[in-house]
């Protein structure tokens, strides 16, 4: 990280600063969720920590006003990039009626917000890949020039729906980006027990699409890969598989105790590569960021997170009877 890599990618200092700020915001929202969980205020957290660089790098490479996003449960960085607010995220953490994702119906991490083209997702992993192909197919049929990005974990890349979704996109040459956020674990199961190939991106050739593996702790590398993939989409060259390699810095979720299956040393070693630190260091080395600016950012973020938390904490739950709503169109509003 000695030359101004971001300039080579066509990113201004301002842009990389906002990149960093969004990574920080994602991290700080996540950290607050854990505090709230440990304080007994929210029953469940699932984290983005360790994947912020990949998520924010990807979001910044897209047209977040037109493109479609099918995120998975860790993608705080991506949904922030697509316009979800800290308050929205806290509303879902607290399962409030105002949660734009589901009105408190789904667990945290089940994103969906139509106005921002964030497509509603479920818990069974990998079902969103065929959906992404379907949306990209619609784009092609309707001759729209937007890109669809779908993300998922490396464990999830072993589900049949990965294969079927990627194959469909390959055969129909669809404008979709498959973003595999490889964090080396699927809950407790390490990557060696999930797949036998060297890289998840080795699978791309099987679908007639290019596959790339990039450093998931480097937002610029991810930005570049996603940018290129997006260009391919827009040029009618079809789908791309991108694997971002980083590490899950937290336990799988607030219900998990990771000490039973991995060592503290391993986690400490990986923390050294944490993008929040390494990207901060890069920006400082490039004289884009100063200690002072960073502290300002942190203050601003703290305030945003405080306000979001307070708003959500004070917001009401949905009415119990409202659980009867929205099963079918014609029952809308009926209780």
């Amino acid at each position: 990280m000695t030359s101004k890599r971001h300039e080579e990618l066509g990113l201004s200092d301002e842009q990389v600063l906002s990149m960093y700020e969004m990574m920080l915001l994602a991290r700080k929202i996540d950290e607050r969720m854990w505090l709230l969980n440990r304080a007994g205020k929210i029953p469940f957290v699932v984290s983005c920590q360790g994947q912020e660089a990949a998520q924010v790098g990807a979001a910044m490479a897209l047209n977040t006003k037109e493109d479609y996003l099918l995120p998975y449960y860790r993608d705080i960085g991506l949904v922030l990039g697509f316009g979800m607010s800290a308050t929205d995220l806290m509303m879902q953490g607290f399962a409030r009626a105002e949660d734009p994702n589901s009105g408190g119906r789904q667990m945290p991490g089940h994103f969906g917000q139509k106005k921002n083209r964030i497509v509603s997702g479920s818990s069974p992993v990998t079902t969103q890949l065929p959906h992404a192909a379907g949306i990209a197919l619609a784009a092609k049929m309707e001759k729209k020039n937007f890109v669809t990005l779908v993300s998922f974990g490396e464990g999830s890349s072993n589900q049949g729906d990965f294969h079927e979704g990627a194959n469909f996109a390959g055969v129909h040459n669809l404008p979709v980006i498959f973003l595999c956020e490889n964090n080396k674990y699927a809950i407790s199961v390490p990557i060696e027990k999930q797949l036998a190939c060297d890289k998840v991106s080795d699978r791309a050739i099987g679908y007639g699409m290019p596959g790339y593996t990039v450093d998931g702790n480097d937002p610029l590398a991810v930005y570049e890969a996603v940018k290129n993939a997006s260009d391919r989409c827009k040029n009618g060259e079809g789908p791309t598989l991108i694997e971002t390699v980083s590490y899950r810095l937290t336990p799988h979720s607030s219900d998990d105790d990771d000490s039973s299956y991995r060592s503290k040393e391993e986690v400490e070693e990986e923390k050294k590569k944490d993008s929040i630190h390494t990207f901060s260091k890069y920006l400082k080395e490039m004289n884009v960021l100063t200690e002072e600016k960073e502290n300002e950012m942190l203050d601003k973020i703290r305030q945003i997170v405080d306000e979001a938390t307070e708003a959500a904490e004070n917001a009401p739950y949905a009415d119990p009877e409202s659980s009867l709503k929205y099963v079918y169109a014609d029952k809308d509003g009926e209780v």
Partner: protein
Amino acid sequence: MAVISYIQAVNAAMREEMEKDEKVFILGEDVGEKGGVFKATEGLYQEFGEERVLDTPLAESAIAGVGIGAAMYGMKPVAEMQFADFIMPAVNQIISEAAKTRYRSNNDWTCPITIRAPYGGGIHGALYHSQSVESLFSHVPGLKIVMPSTPYDVKGLLKSAIQDEDPVLFFEHKRAYRLVKGEVPDEEYTLPIGKADIKKEGEDITVISYGLCLHFAMEAAEKLEDEGISTHILDLRTVYPLDQEAIIEAASKTGKVLLVTEDNKEGSLMGEVSAIIAEHCLFDLDAPVQRLAGPEVPAMPYAPTMEKYFMMNPEKIEKAIRELAQF
């Protein structure tokens, strides 16, 4: 009014909806150039082009899942499962995704997909080309399941299914495809999903059925008419959610009810129909609610001897009605 076959009604409904609405498209295995293994999509590829009549890779979870994605975007996909038996790999997409999209997003996202599949036996299809799969799904809020018996119902209900704002499973009896013919109006029409239909008025016995069995019941009823047994026949048409009102009315009318399905008995949706009657019509009943169904084996065998033994037919229904009349 023209007389057309059951499968022609399927074809006509799709053609009309595709002509009317550019967002309607078809995807499935062999639906394109070949026009489907049963010819349900015959001519559509030629008429609407390969962009609106897509031959997909052999992968049902993707057929459903890609359709679901397109539907969430705002298209109106009509997905074909080549045989209802092969809907199994798509169950996760149908139950976890299509059925729950509207609910889980608090009405933000919707999934107006139609999934068609030929079901049923009596065509030497053996274990995996003869199954009735409706009971697998007739328990999943968010889905609607339509199983029409006549060309008129097929056309009106398939058009409604395609227009519906929610996911609809549309099961067509494959033996009815060419066997069953009927009149269909020349002008456009649709029929309401969720409504059962009285196919024959009668006084002594109520038969409730759907799909091909409905015709067997009509045949049986006709014969029994000569013996002085008058049969009232209700066609469920939509098997989920059930038209409770129509069921209660039909059951109460005669007090003697026979439920007929080609599916095996235990756990079939006829259990639900019986339960509805037991809940609402107990004191109107003159005899226990009877269910006539297939045997409790995994699926219909191939050899004609065994297939015939499994398969529903007018004679079995006739016998059951007669017994109930004598109760």
